[in-house]
């Protein structure tokens, strides 16, 4: 792919991720746990891992978190640091699983659903670790069970949405165009 095309596609993905990141903060969740959210922006991170590689996906994720923080007025506060550590942890684990699963035989591979769930769990663990560092207290890990459970529905939802999106992108031939 030409650098200009790649640059443009990265810019579009960052913009989409920011919109999802901000849109998600408008949805109230019934669980009073700091940091439990849908993780819609993770769709873009995973899509970037499918189209590009770990480095580009990480760039998109970090840009999304910083610009999203700037736009929502939470830049460099606690929510921002929890968000960025969760996002980097999720991107890293999903990239590892994606390269790992391509080496396995086809019957024991992870699908995007599993990778998305693992990403959601890594996001929540990354957030908790950052929160524990910030408040200098390990009691935050009492939230570990509920954070792990909540990563199942949210990870499955974002994984399902991405599978639908990829189906459409494949059928319309756009995915091949992106990856060429």
């Amino acid at each position, binding site marked *: 792919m030409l650098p200009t095309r790649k640059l443009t596609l990265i810019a579009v993905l960052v913009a989409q991720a920011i919109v999802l990141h901000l849109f998600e903060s408008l949805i109230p969740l019934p669980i*009073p*746990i*700091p940091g439990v959210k849908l993780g819609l922006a993770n769709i873009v991170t995973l899509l970037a891992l499918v189209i590009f590689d770990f480095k580009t996906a990480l760039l998109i994720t970090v840009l999304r978190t910083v610009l999203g923080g700037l736009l929502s007025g939470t830049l460099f*506060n*606690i929510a921002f640091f*929890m968000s960025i550590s969760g996002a980097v942890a999720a991107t890293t684990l999903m990239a590892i699983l994606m390269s790992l*699963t391509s080496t*396995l035989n086809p*019957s*024991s*591979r*992870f*699908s995007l*659903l*599993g990778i998305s*769930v*693992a990403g959601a*769990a890594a996001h929540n663990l990354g957030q908790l670790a950052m*929160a*524990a*560092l*910030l*408040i*200098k*207290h*390990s*009691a*935050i890990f*009492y*939230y*570990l*069970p*509920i954070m*792990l*459970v909540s*990563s*199942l529905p949210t990870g499955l939802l974002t994984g399902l949405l991405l599978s639908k999106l990829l189906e459409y992108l494949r059928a319309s031939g756009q995915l091949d165009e992106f990856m060429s």
Partner: protein
Amino acid sequence: MTKADKVLIGIILALSLLTWLGLTYWHREAGKLTGEISAGDRSIAQFNLSQTAAPRTIKVTGPLGTSVVEIRAGAVRMKSSPCPDHFCMHTGWISQPGRVIVCVPNRIIIETNRKPDSVDAIAY
């Protein structure tokens, strides 16, 4: 969904169930329910929750301002907090051993039946 996905989901479910059971039962002691309030790594107050005592409040100061913790017989809650999202207040009353209310923005932690020898600070 592939077999590997199901195994992964199973592992996450098992981990969360084990940690939940572990936290609850590790802190369970017959007839004992205590509470402890910390501001960051400093312990502010310890109190007994199993006695029927008159309801009272404790004020704790964090980086954002003053949070008010309310104690009644058998339960404790965050009554008011200067943090933006009020996750701590929405947690409501906690009345089981091994439960916690954490206010991350104001660095206030309320724990029930904290183990004195448990790891309570992060080593840098």
